[in-house]
């Protein structure tokens, strides 16, 4: 993977990964063995015909490659960038058994970027002749919603997405920073979904502006809920509401959605010289790297286990370390100390050691008694995870949820309310973009079937 030099990239929000040149892409594509029984496809939640699009790249048929991708994936530019390919398609690549697997993600990204640059083949809306004037509603414009809407539109339905924020994209817009996913890529892929005939209505909060029942009254025949896992978790330690303590969601939303890093935008963000990000996932890596770009002098990543147990992708850990993020492992925050004005001064922590494995199979961190120490900090970002947003379930009687707030669905994505389907993080709890897309795709099929059966009846 080609990347911009560290010194240059930490000063701005431009994309870090550079992708393939045409020659590099063709060379990489030619390494593909074109297996008779391709295992890579099984690793893909949206079942992209991977060998086919790689072959098309190898033969310089780039517009065919993007067509192949878009048959099953409306958002290839996004997936090529943020999918954890190493634990999906690439994990099954035969070449990976002995050497390096095919870099499927970067090839996917190449095809998508080529389309943007060449401008020409906007793979135009494949609206079917059998236009059914049947209205479908999709709640949330994140990866699950966009995918579900795109698939329904391809089947010929009249689809409306309802988004509560002022811009579509969900976590792709407010969560993932621009240096990992440029906004023109996101805008372009959303435009593609719109070109398929999908209408996106922003500033509508389902549950409040309209309830689920009211959507049915408005004539929508089936509803997909993909409202995500956007409810921030806190540590519940003393001082957590101090000034200078952000949830990762607030910190990233200020930077990404509200563009607080750009002087022309009015939303403020305050960053101190010394920043501590608590957590070890991809969101924590994003927050740490954003803090660095906002001008922090020292950024610590504070995690209670060791690097091995961090849930972040290897690639993201590596990017963060390269850029100078300091990993403070086996460190458990216990208290945030403040000054008289209520601003963060330091973070008191305990040193941990690894004990016996827990239910997750990871070795449990155990505090070392009396090991208390403090890290002087000006800003703290808490990135220890998100749970499903309870708003829609709480305003939708009869919508069954689990204890943790996830919506209960059957194998087809159907919820406890007839005609209401769900998928993505609101069902699984925080997971990956591509898994949410897989769920959106599956639900679209089930919604189609549901509506067909209903018409028959």
């Amino acid at each position, binding site marked *: 993977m080609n990347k911009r030099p560290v010194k240059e990239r930490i000063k701005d929000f431009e994309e870090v990964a550079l992708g393939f040149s045409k020659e590099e892409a063709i060379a990489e594509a030619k390494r593909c063995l074109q297996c008779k029984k391709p295992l890579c496809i099984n690793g893909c939640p949206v079942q992209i015909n991977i060998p086919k699009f790689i072959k098309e790249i190898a033969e310089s048929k780039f517009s065919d490659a993007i067509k192949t991708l878009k048959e099953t994936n409306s958002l290839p530019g996004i997936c090529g960038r943020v999918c954890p390919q190493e634990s999906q398609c690439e994990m099954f690549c035969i070449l990976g058994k002995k050497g390096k697997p095919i870099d499927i993600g970067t090839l996917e990204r190449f095809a998508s970027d080529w389309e943007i640059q060449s401008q020409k083949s906007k793979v135009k809306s494949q609206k079917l002749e059998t236009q059914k004037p049947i209205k479908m509603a999709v709640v949330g414009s994140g990866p699950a919603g966009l995918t579900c809407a795109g698939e329904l539109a391809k089947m010929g339905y009249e689809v409306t997405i309802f988004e509560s924020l002022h811009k579509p994209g969900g976590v792709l817009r407010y969560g993932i920073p621009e240096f990992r996913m440029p906004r023109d890529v996101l805008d372009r892929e959303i435009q593609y979904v719109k070109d398929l005939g999908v209408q996106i209505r922003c500033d509508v909060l389902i549950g409040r502006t309209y309830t689920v029942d009211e959507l049915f009254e408005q004539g929508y025949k089936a509803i997909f809920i993909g409202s995500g896992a956007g409810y921030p978790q806190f540590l519940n330690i003393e001082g957590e509401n101090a000034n200078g303590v952000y*949830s990762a969601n607030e910190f990233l939303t200020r930077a990404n959605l509200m563009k607080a890093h750009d002087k022309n935008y009015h939303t403020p963000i305050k960053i101190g010289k010394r920043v501590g990000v608590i957590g070890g996932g991809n969101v924590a890596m994003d927050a740490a790297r954003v803090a660095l770009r906002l001008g922090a002098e020292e950024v610590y990543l504070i995690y209670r286990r060791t690097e091995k147990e961090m849930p972040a992708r290897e690639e993201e850990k590596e990017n963060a370390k390269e850029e100078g993020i300091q990993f403070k492992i086996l460190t458990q925050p216990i208290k945030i100390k403040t000054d008289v*004005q209520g601003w963060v001064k330091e973070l008191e922590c305990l040193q941990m050691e690894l004990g016996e494995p827990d239910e997750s199979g990871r070795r449990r961190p155990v505090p070392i008694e009396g090991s208390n120490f403090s890290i002087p900090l000006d800003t703290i970002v808490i990135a220890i995870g998100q749970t499903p947003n309870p708003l829609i379930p709480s305003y939708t009687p009869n919508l069954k949820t689990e204890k943790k707030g996830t919506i209960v669905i059957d194998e087809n994505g159907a919820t406890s309310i007839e005609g209401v389907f769900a998928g993505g993080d609101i069902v699984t709890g925080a997971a990956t973009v591509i898994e949410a897309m897989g769920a959106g795709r599956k639900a679209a099929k089930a919604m189609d079937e549901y509506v067909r059966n209903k018409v028959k009846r």
Partner: protein
Amino acid sequence: MKPNQILNKKELAPSIKLFDIYAPDIAKKCLPGNFIIFRLHEYGERIPLTINDWDRQKGTIRIIVQEIGRATKELGNMNIGDVILNLMGPLGKSSEIDRFGKVVCIGGGVGTAVIYPIAKALKEKGNEIIGIIGAKTKELVILEDEMRKISSKCYITTDDGSYGKKGFVTDALNEIISSQKIDRVIAIGPIMMMKKISEITKLHSIPTIVSLNPIMIDGTGMCGGCRVRIGNQTKFACVDGPEFDAHKVDFDELLHRNNRFAEEEKDSCKLLNQGGKDE
């Protein structure tokens, strides 16, 4: 009429303006205590404002805004016919409207705009309303006629004594409490005012509700920026509130938290005054 279009604008007091906005979806649904979030242009912040009144038939909502920060100043500069780029709601839990008996409804400054719809609904439910309006000076007293109409008695206090009684809303409250049994107090205004009122009613064990106005972004529980301490728990004002049991609110923490971006706000307002980068 376009969605989010300003249909009526009125200056109630220096830097306090009333707007009627065409927002039929919100007007159809909103209840006392609900708020909206607006954003004026591509570069603007998202700002929450409580809905003051509504006309479900005309499809309009009324908001009353005091020009404090950059976004509220920019809104103040908008005129009839202008369209607000983004408007979302209704948000927040609605006020508890029940038969309580004798309810003192206190509005401090522009907080009177927030207390009014609640007081009105409580009156319609059969409660007796005693109103208190507090302001720095005479010209900043708003909604006096409206409050008088629904109150059995309406007290007015001004800091400088230019209108009503010289003093604070707490003085009026003490006077009321000393002469009769009060079943409930609802107080909305500056944090310091709500804190003082809460201290008084706690002594007298009168159930008291306040409406909090922390800094927010999305208004849907996503960012956690509006978290407030209620008893031993952290709550999100946008979805768990904005109204809470005053006796459990950590007002000092809220005072601190609302100062988080005070410097940045000042700089931004300066830019606006200089006619700096603006849409």
